[in-house]
């Protein structure tokens, strides 16, 4: 179980190989996102014993179980609240949260905005596949206009969230977005997010190929992932990915960064001022 970590990135150093094969559908963008996370962890040379991965409920939520670290598969929408307790109790752990668009923007929306506001040192990876993958393809708060889901059989009529704008407005001190196709860029973004001392929100534009892709005739899994590139206009490589697979002017890369006081550090200095030593 305890593989020595090789110098070059070998994903097997970070996976629980005894949990393979994983349950994701072939071509699912969440698998690419997981690879990017583990690659970032490798480049940061993080000690797996001191790494905690907290996830919610959904296909995205299942990812924590595959990571060879301290992993917590919590309740739907609550991983940020759980991680808040964990990180405050254990500032020595690096805490990464994996959540879905439904998990963090619908049921967990309140927890997301307050996590952004507090600025506790957590890294939140929001895997946005525009759909509730786990429950079989219902509309989510990020479903694009007119898309078909099982609960929008006539096409989606609801407006969607721009999660990064939401996170920025709520005060997240690090906000970024990347598509799964750009794996090295995504890895770099996640690495920056983890290294940032404060709350980091990273939106990963991921594909639910099997359910959402099929229902909306977006092509086969590889086609769907390649669409991300196909639709990128050459002039948009300066951080603009237009119509990759979701219409709209999605900015990618680091969208906001602000070095403001980290919540845990602020709490501990507050304690120190009142005679309380460092939390045990």
């Amino acid at each position: 179980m305890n593989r020595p970590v090789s110098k070059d990135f070998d994903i097997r150093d970070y996976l629980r190989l005894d949990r393979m094969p994983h349950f994701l559908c072939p071509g699912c963008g969440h698998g690419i996102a997981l690879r990017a996370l583990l690659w970032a962890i490798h480049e940061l040379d993080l000690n797996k014993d001191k790494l905690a991965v907290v996830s919610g409920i959904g296909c995205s939520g299942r990812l924590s179980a595959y990571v060879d670290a301290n992993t917590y598969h919590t309740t739907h929408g609550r991983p940020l609240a759980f991680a808040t307790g964990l990180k405050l109790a254990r500032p020595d752990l690096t805490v990464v949260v994996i959540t879905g668009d439904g998990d963090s923007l619908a049921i967990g929306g309140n927890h997301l905005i307050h996590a952004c506001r507090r600025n506790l040192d957590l890294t939140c990876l929001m895997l946005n596949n525009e759909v509730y993958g786990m429950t079989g393809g219902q509309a989510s708060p990020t479903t694009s206009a007119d898309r078909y889901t099982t609960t929008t059989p006539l096409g989606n009529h609801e407006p969607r969230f721009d999660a990064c704008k939401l996170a920025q407005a709520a005060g997240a001190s690090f906000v970024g977005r990347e598509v799964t196709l750009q794996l090295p860029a995504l890895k770099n973004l996640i690495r920056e997010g983890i290294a940032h001392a404060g709350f980091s929100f990273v939106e990963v534009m991921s594909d639910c190929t099997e359910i959402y892709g099929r229902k909306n005739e977006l092509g086969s899994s590889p086609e769907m992932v390649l669409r991300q590139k196909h639709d990128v206009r050459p002039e948009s490589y300066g951080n603009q990915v237009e119509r990759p697979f979701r219409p709209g002017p999605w900015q990618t890369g680091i969208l906001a960064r602000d070095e403001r006081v980290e919540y845990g550090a602020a709490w501990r200095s507050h304690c120190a001022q009142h005679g309380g030593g460092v939390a045990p």
Partner: protein
Amino acid sequence: MNTSTQLVNLQGNRACALAAIAAGCRFYAGYPITPSTEIAETMAAELPKLGGVFIQMEDEIASMAAVVGAAMGGAIAMTATSGPGFSLKQENLGYASAAEIPCVVVNVMRGGPSTGMPTRPAQGDVMQARWGTHGDHPIIVLTPASVPEIHAQTRKAFELSERFRIPVVVLYDEVLGHLVETVELGATGAVTPVERRYTRAARDSYQPYAPDEDGIPVMARPGDGYRTHTTGLTHDTNGFPTQDSVRVARIMERLLGKTDRHRDAIEQWHCIECDDAEVLVVAYGISARAATHAVHTARARGIAAGLFRPITLWPFPERAFAHATRHAHTVLVPELNAGQLRLEIERLCAHNPAVHGLHRLDGETLTPAQILADIERLAASKPRMRRVGDSA
């Protein structure tokens, strides 16, 4: 070291918070709600001095999630709330129950349903405390009846929760929460804080949910190299989900069997004049205060009345209760609800002895006179009733 005890006047909620701190609680996450707020306020003032963590979360769902997160990190953790907030705690209380995460939840009961009567006492959450979260699950519920007992039972809650890895609910009502009584605080250092038990197993053979000889799995501390998985999905001894029916049956049997197997360590009760009681009053919390008075008066009037007071409400101390009813022809259950514990008592008695309820739902407490009137009426309704002092 100061070995003398200290007598202090404390409000119930404050006694609860101070007992939690004495028990070693160093993490509190909560959301303000009457009539429990003084617990949060005390924690907010005291925990920083000890290097602990107090955090006011965005709601009760988040506070309960933060508590289980902190507990998994190794903190001795608690939250406190009242009715509407208790409803919101249920989701992650269930998670704590399933993933066997030690934690304490205090519910200071107020009038319900819904927003109800925030400043009035009630005992309407008896069944919610037992069955509030979905699915069959183990839970322990303690119901103190005085401020000193709030202090003692809050301490006990942490001890039981750590030992059996079951969330423990401390359940009392608005009157007890705001009542001021004298508490004898132990000498400095007399209350030993609870300690989490951690595994010393070899890292590659450790199974996070393999039971020890008592049926309780031993936790691993994150950071110590065990790198385990925790989930609310039904999980095998290795911590990972399973739906294998044979294994799931065994897993559920162990999980639900924890309270049964350790009844002797969990169940607490108090008996007044139960030995020859013919009319047995079963009361808890604030109602037990009035009942105690009523039973003493009844005795003075020659009626063989007794009081069985469960301190552990769930699991209900069934055997002790059965023993207390051995001479009773009637059981009276006065409660500030529509008869929630009465249902359980009826189940246990199977109508022998007969069970009567006395319910009050108007936001006032039951008075000794009300309970006494029922005791007298019920005593008189049994012609062959033996009086205290009769020969035989």
